[in-house]
C-alpha cells in the first residue's frame, strides 16, 4: 500500500528535511537581502512601494495560496470528488471583486493599512479602532488555522506516525517543533525583512509551490496521455462512488435521507459558504495591504491580473492533483494516512515518483511536494503576521494612542515588537490547540472579511452619505454576528466533530457558515448606523473619490 509512514525510512526523512533546510536558508538570505534597505515606515509596512505588477502579482499568489488550498482542496477532491472544486471556484471568482472595485481605489486612497482607507473621511479614532479590531480578528483566525495545521502537516510530511520516533522525536514532539520553527521563521521574515523582505520571500515561494504543482500535474496527465476524461473515469471507479464522485453533493450540501430539514440546512450552508468565499477575499487585510507595495493604482490593478492568472492556473492544477490522487492513490490509502485528506497530494507525488524511478524517485518527489507545502505555510503565515503588526503599530499604537504623532521610526520599532508578540501568542495558542479541529477558522475569517470589511470598504468609496457611525456599526455588526453565529453553530458544539465535542450543546444556529446571515446583517448595520447619525463630510468624500479614481495626491514610492 501507499501509506507514507510504512515506506518512509529515516534516509527519506533526511532528504525531506534537507530540502526544507535549503528552502529555509534561501528565504532567510532573501529576507536579509530585502530587509537591508528597510528603515522608514513606508519600507516596513509597504516595502517601499516599488514592486512591479508581476512581482506583486506573484507575491499576492504566495500570500493567498495557503497550505489549506494546496493540500486541502486536492485532498477534498481526492476524497469527495467534485465538491473540492466548489471551494476553489469561490476562491478564484472572488478576485473579480478585488479587481473591479477595490485594488486601484484602495491603493490610491490609503497608505499602509485597510483602516487608512476606511477612516479617510471619518473620525479617526473610532473607525481606526474598529478596523484594527476586525483586521486582527480575521488575521488571527486565519493565522491560528495555519499554525495548528502546520504541526500536523510537518509530522505528516515527515511520515512520523503515533508510536514512532525520528531524531528522538515522537509525533507529538514533532508537531510542537513544527509549530515553533514555523513561528520563529515567520517572525524573523517580518521583523528583519519588513514588507520588502516578506514580499520577495512570497514571490520565491509562489514560484516553488505553483511550479511544483505544475510539474506534478503534468506528470499525472502524462500518465493518462492528457486524456482528462479517462483520468476522471479512473477516479470515479476507484472511489467506489461511480458517477456520483464527479457530481456535487458528497461533501457540501449533502442530502440526508428521511430528514428534509437537515437537507435544507446543509444546502443553505453550502450557499452560505459560497457567499463568504466570493465576498471575503476582497476584505482580507493581508491580501489588501499588498496593493500598497506597488508604485501606483494602475500597477496595483495590473498586479491583480497576474494574481488571477496564477491563482486560477493553480486551482486548475489542484483539480488534476485531486482527481489524480483519487485515481492513483485511492481513498482508503489516503484516509489511512490522514482522515481529512491532506496527505493526498504528497502521496500522489510519491506514487508518481515511484512510477518513474522506483523508491528513490518516490522519496525525491515526496520531498519536493512536502517543501512546496511548507513554502505555502511559511509565506501565508508571514503575510498574516505583517498584516497584524502593521495594524497594531500604524492603527492602534500610532493612530489611536499617539493621535498620529509618533514618528515613522517609532512606528517601525513598535511594529517589529508587535510581530514578535503576535508570533509568540500564535505559537502558544497553536501548541495548546493542536488537537482541536480548527479548520472552521479559515471559513470564519472569510465570513468576517465579507461581513465586516467589504461592505464598509465599498460604502466608504462609493456612498456619499456614509459616515463614522455607519462604519463603526457595520464593522462591529458584521464581526460580532459572524463570530456569534459560529459560536452557536454545530461547528462549535453539539456534534461529535464540534470544537467542544458532543457534551456541550449550545448550537441553536443550524448553519456552520454564518455568511448567509452575517453578510446582510453587516450591511444593514452599516446602513442603519449611517442614517441614524447626521454626520456627513461631502468635501472629504469628494477628495477621496478623486484620489481613488485619478491617483492624485496618492502615496508615492520611496526614492532610492
Amino acid at each position: 500500500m501507499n501509506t507514507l509512514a510504512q515506506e518512509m525510512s529515516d534516509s527519506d526523512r533526511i532528504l525531506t528535511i534537507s530540502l526544507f533546510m535549503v528552502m529555509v536558508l534561501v528565504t532567510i538570505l532573501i529576507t536579509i537581502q530585502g530587509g537591508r534597505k528597510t528603515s522608514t515606515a513606508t519600507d516596513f509596512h509597504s516595502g517601499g512601494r516599488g514592486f512591479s505588477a508581476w512581482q506583486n502579482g506573484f507575491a499576492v499568489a504566495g500570500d493567498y495560496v495557503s497550505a489549506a488550498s494546496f493540500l486541502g482542496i486536492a485532498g477534498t477532491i481526492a476524497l469527495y470528488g467534485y465538491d473540492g472544486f466548489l471551494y476553489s471556484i469561490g476562491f478564484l471568482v472572488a478576485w473579480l471583486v478585488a479587481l473591479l472595485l477595490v485594488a486601484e481605489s484602495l491603493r490610491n486612497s490609503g497608505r499602509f493599512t485597510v483602516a487608512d482607507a476606511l477612516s479617510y473621511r471619518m473620525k479617526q479614532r473610532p473607525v481606526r479602532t474598529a478596523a484594527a479590531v476586525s483586521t486582527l480578528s480575521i488575521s488571527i483566525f486565519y493565522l491560528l488555522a495555519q499554525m495548528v495545521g502546520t504541526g500536523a502537516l510537518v509530522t505528516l510530511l515527515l511520515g512520523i506516525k503515533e508510536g514512532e520516533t525520528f531524531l528522538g522525536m515522537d509525533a507529538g514532539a514533532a508537531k510542537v517543533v513544527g509549530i515553533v520553527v514555523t513561528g520563529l521563521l515567520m517572525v524573523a521574515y517580518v521583523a528583519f525583512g519588513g514588507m520588502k523582505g516578506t514580499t520577495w520571500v512570497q514571490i520565491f515561494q509562489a514560484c516553488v509551490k505553483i511550479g511544483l504543482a505544475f510539474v506534478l500535474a503534468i506528470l499525472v496527465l502524462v500518465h493518462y496521455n492528457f486524456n482528462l476524461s479517462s483520468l476522471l473515469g479512473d477516479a470515479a471507479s476507484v472511489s467506489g462512488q461511480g458517477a456520483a464522485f464527479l457530481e456535487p453533493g458528497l461533501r457540501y450540501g449533502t442530502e440526508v435521507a428521511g430528514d428534509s430539514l437537515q437537507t435544507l440546512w446543509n444546502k443553505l450552508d453550502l450557499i452560505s459558504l459560497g457567499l463568504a468565499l466570493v465576498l471575503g477575499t476582497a476584505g482580507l487585510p493581508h491580501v489588501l495591504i499588498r496593493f500598497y507595495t506597488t508604485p501606483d493604482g494602475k500597477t496595483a490593478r495590473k498586479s491583480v491580473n497576474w494574481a488571477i492568472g496564477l491563482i486560477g492556473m493553480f486551482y486548475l492544477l489542484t483539480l488534476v492533483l485531486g482527481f489524480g490522487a483519487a485515481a492513483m492513490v485511492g481513498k482508503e490509502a489516503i484516509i489511512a494516512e490522514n482522515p481529512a485528506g491532506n496527505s493526498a497530494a504528497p502521496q500522489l507525488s510519491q506514487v508518481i515518483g515511484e512510477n518513474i524511478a522506483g523508491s528513490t524517485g518516490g522519496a525525491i518527489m515526496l520531498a519536493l511536494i512536502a517543501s512546496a507545502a511548507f513554502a505555502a505555510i511559511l509565506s501565508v503565515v508571514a503575510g498574516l503576521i505583517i498584516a497584524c503588526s502593521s495594524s497594531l503599530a500604524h492603527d492602534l499604537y500610532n493612530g489611536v494612542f499617539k493621535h498620529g504623532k509618533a514618528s515613522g521610526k517609532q512606528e517601525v520599532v513598535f511594529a517589529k515588537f508587535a510581530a514578535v508578540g503576535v508570533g509568540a501568542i500564535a505559537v502558544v495558542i497553536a501548541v495548546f490547540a493542536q488537537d482541536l479541529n480548527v479548520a472552521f477558522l479559515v471559513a470564519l475569517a472569510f465570513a468576517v472579511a465579507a461581513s465586516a470589511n467589504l461592505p464598509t470598504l465599498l460604502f466608504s468609496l462609493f456612498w456619499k452619505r456614509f459616515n463614522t457611525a455607519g462604519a463603526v456599526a457595520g464593522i462591529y455588526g458584521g464581526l460580532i454576528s459572524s463570530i456569534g453565529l459560529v459560536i452557536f453553530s454545530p461547528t462549535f458544539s453539539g456534534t461529535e466533530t464540534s470544537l467542544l465535542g458532543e457534551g456541550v450543546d449550545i448550537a441553536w444556529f443550524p448553519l456552520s457558515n454564518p455568511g448567509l446571515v452575517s453578510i446582510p446583517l453587516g450591511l444593514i448595520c452599516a446602513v442603519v448606523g449611517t442614517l441614524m447619525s447626521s454626520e456627513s463630510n461631502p468635501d472629504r468624500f469628494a477628495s477621496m473619490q478623486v484620489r481613488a479614481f485619478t491617483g492624485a495626491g496618492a502615496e508615492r514610492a520611496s526614492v532610492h
Partner: protein
Amino acid sequence: MTTTPEDNGPPPEVSDAEIAAMHDDPRFVELKRTLFRFTVPVLLAALAWYLVYVLLSAYARDFMGIVLFGNINLGLILGLSQFAVTFYVTWAYNRFTARKFDQQSAALRDDIMNGGAK
C-alpha cells in the same frame, strides 16, 4: 540609502481642497460614469453567474450530472466556465482601462497636480 519623500501625512504638493474641487468637474463625472458603466454590470453579471452555479450545485444535481461526453459532465463544464468567465472579465477590464480609463484618469491627475503646484 533610502530617502522617503514624506513619512507622515499625504505627499505635500497638492491640498485636499484642490483635489476635492475636481469632483464636480464634468470630466471627472464622465470618468466615473464610464468606469461604473463597465464595472457595475460586469461584476453583477459575473457574481450572478457564480450564484447560479452554486445554486445548481445545491439544488440541481441531476442536471449537473448530465454526461456530455466520456466522463465529462455538465457540472465540470459549468465549473470550468467560472474560470473562463474570471479570466475573460480580467482580460476585458484590462482592455477597457487601457482604452477608456487610464489616459483620462492620468490627464485629470496631471491637471490637479499642475494646478496645485505653487
